[in-house]
């Protein structure tokens, strides 16, 4: 694992590894079968920059209206030492929160370094674990090992301590209307929370305590209905935790892929970049467009070689795994004699072609 680290550095072409946050780590679970994404993520390559270099910028712009709304809501919930949040935890979830204390771990006097901030997070959490002191720890700077390299997580949550147990509190600005929210948005929030739960658990274990003191139940704080009033909903993130742990464990296995790559391969900007990227196989599916910065490049590549997968996972599945559109059509038309292992697929495609022609009659 550590032996691959120099290789991975080389892949970045000397650029510093990109910062991870819970969102980028959660994105690792979206398409784990993709070697290209796996290698780039493990090496901390700035995929957004690479995609731009390649002429396929990822269209993930954010509207300032959404950003403003998110910031306003978060500030409101956290105002006055998280007064609104505490009211919520007490009234809505019925928790008995004694006199509460709020620590913002983002502010370390005179120092901006992450090491310092992480040290402070460690210190305060250690004390909380020992003595039960402290209630809300805002912006804890946590660390997680990604592909054999420790990365700091941009802190975006509050760790909430109650009776010796920690809960992750995540503030999101999408609405919960009559108890329901957009399932995709909740899922994204749950995956991100799971990353924090995992990082917190690792820290708690490092401090010599039972990791189970970090609850798998996180509190999602969102605006309620059409108002700015926050509401808190408990979310069980055990499934997401299992997935994130699995994928992190898997990332360390990219050394096998890296070992098979050309020794001088690098994703540094330059004329050779497209070729370098293509040297690592992608597993493109249209779903990638929702989560991977490289998706538009990979889509273009998949379309250019006439891959059936570019039409969707279920299409390729219907074709019994035939990868090429041209080949599938040739089998369907009967112009290509199928190899033995494709005989069945070919027969079905020919029947489908006949039935389509028959039904379309004059139309076709």
């Amino acid at each position: 694992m550590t032996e691959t680290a120099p290789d991975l550095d080389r892949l970045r072409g000397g650029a510093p590894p990109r910062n991870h946050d819970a969102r980028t780590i959660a994105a690792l679970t979206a398409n784990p079968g993709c070697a290209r994404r796996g290698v780039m993520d493990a090496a901390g390559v700035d995929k957004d920059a690479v995609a731009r270099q390649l002429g396929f910028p990822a269209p993930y712009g954010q509207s300032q209206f959404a950003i403003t709304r998110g910031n306003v809501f978060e500030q409101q919930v956290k105002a006055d030492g998280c007064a609104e949040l505490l009211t919520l935890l007490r009234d809505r979830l019925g928790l008995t929160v004694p006199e509460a204390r709020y620590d913002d771990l983002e502010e370390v006097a005179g120092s901006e370094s992450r090491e310092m901030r992480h040290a402070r997070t460690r210190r305060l959490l250690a004390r909380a674990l020992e003595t039960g002191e402290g209630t809300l720890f805002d912006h804890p700077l946590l660390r997680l090992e990604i592909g054999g390299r420790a990365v700091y997580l941009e802190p975006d949550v509050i760790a909430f301590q109650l009776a010796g147990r920690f809960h992750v509190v995540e503030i999101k600005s999408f609405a919960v209307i009559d108890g329901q929210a957009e399932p995709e948005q909740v899922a994204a929030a749950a995956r991100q929370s799971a990353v924090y739960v995992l990082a917190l658990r690792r820290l708690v274990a490092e401090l010599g305590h039972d990791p189970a003191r970090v609850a798998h139940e996180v509190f999602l704080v969102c605006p309620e209905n059409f108002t700015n009033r926050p509401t808190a909903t408990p979310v069980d993130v055990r499934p997401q935790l299992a997935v994130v742990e699995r994928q992190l464990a898997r990332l360390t296995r990219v050394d096998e892929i890296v070992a098979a790559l050309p020794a001088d391969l690098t994703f540094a900007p330059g004329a050779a970049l497209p070729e370098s990227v293509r040297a690592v196989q992608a597993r493109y599916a249209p779903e990638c467009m929702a989560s991977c910065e490289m998706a538009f490049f990979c889509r273009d590549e998949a379309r250019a070689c006439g891959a059936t997968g570019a039409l969707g996972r279920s299409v390729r599945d219907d074709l019994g795994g035939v990868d090429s559109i041209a080949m599938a059509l040739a089998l369907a038309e009967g112009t290509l004699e199928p190899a033995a292992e494709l005989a069945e697929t070919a027969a079905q495609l020919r029947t489908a072609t006949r039935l389509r022609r028959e039904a379309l009659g004059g139309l076709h």
Partner: protein
Amino acid sequence: MSVLSSLARLEAAATGRAQPVATVRHCHLAGAPLVMIPLKLAGEAAAPLAVMLGRDRAEPALLVVPQPRNRDLRFAFAADLAKIVLEHIEASRGAAEALAPGKDGEERFRYTDAPQILLPNPGGVGFLARLGRSTRFRSTEGPYAVEPGVPALGRWLTWFADRHDHPGSSLLLTVTEALRLHWATGQSSLEDGNLAALMGWIDPPDGLDGAAAAARAEDPVVCPPAGPATDPTFDNEVLAPAIASYDETGHEQRVRTALEGQLAPTWDLMWRAVDLLRALPEGASVAKRWERDRDGFTWFHRNFDEGVPQPRRDTAVRAARRLHDLERAQDAYEAQRAFDDPLIMAEHRLNGQAFGGVVAGGDPARLDESGKRPKLRPHLLIATADPVRLDTGTAVCNAARPGLKGKIVDIGPDGVTVELTGGMGNRLTPAPGSVPELGDRVVFTSLTGGSFGPARFPDRESTPWTHGGPPPEYVPADEDAQEEWS
């Protein structure tokens, strides 16, 4: 997805043009539908930004909220929208025709027509449902009074959105879903969600093929999104300054112009899509399903004045009833589509649940004399190359004339032998033309439509203990009416 529609996608990708996956139109298209393209403010649950709408393609109306965070402006918008939607409802319903009285002698009516709304995509339906949710509980009196049209709009939008869940209903259609029911493109279903890209494959502009037209459609500058979400770059570079200018000057023209520019291209696409759909011949069962839609509409319309806003969530009994209705509609819809359209029936043939071929033999005048009285039981040998996956003894019917029923008696190398059991008249010789003749092309299927009967449910007052007992009666509360909308 099925192999047949996947094959159509391959053909579309290879030819550069969308390929048909239906031979008839499976949805009703009103003579004058209300086309609506709503936009919402990014980051908000249901803050309307604008809607372009109308029944006449030459005269779209444009409603905008020049400062979407201003609550009074939102309600003014809702009142304006209510006016147009309620007018559309009244203009579309036609006369009330009297039907045969019900079992208990009660009078029954059905409007001869019903209002139809067309939206670009399912996201639009979700937005209208939320807009309905945020307006239907408003009160027309008291401290937060709104115009009477606002809660009425809320109830109607809620009703339309609910009907959209109903399989086969055409009261609220989305154009992307309607087009995808009839064409397969050379891109993925995810990408089909973009109306402009979808239309690019079905009806590309001169000189472009589907792929090129779709690629062009993905550029939000050329083809602004069909809503309800707006393009973030537009938000940041055009809309935000325009709203700021409204805040300063009180003139909304700049916001209007900006939003009109975003909506107009989709407006044209919507009507072009309507043209394409209208050009398809209507499926045989479409009128029957529209009749169900008219029934639903008639009931809601006639009971509107006495009714209260739909509750936030279904009660246990309501939920169970609704699920049953939906499953029943789904069952009927799937069967009807297959019987209406040989290309849908082809999917069942490919799955082995139907088979087609030429009548190659049999005994069209065969009598079964094993019982007390002889019965007309013709045998038909159908030579088929289809992969039949039915067992002998399975009941089947003729796809073209489902009244002609039979059962499979043999599946052999020469084909399938079907014994006809009904649909040939009451005599011992078949009614003329009822039994297919030698050389006729026929399709038989095990599919049956409408096998799903109505079901019995407890009254809500009798909700059993297993489901929490009877829920409290819903009374609209002041709290609902005063709910903030910020």
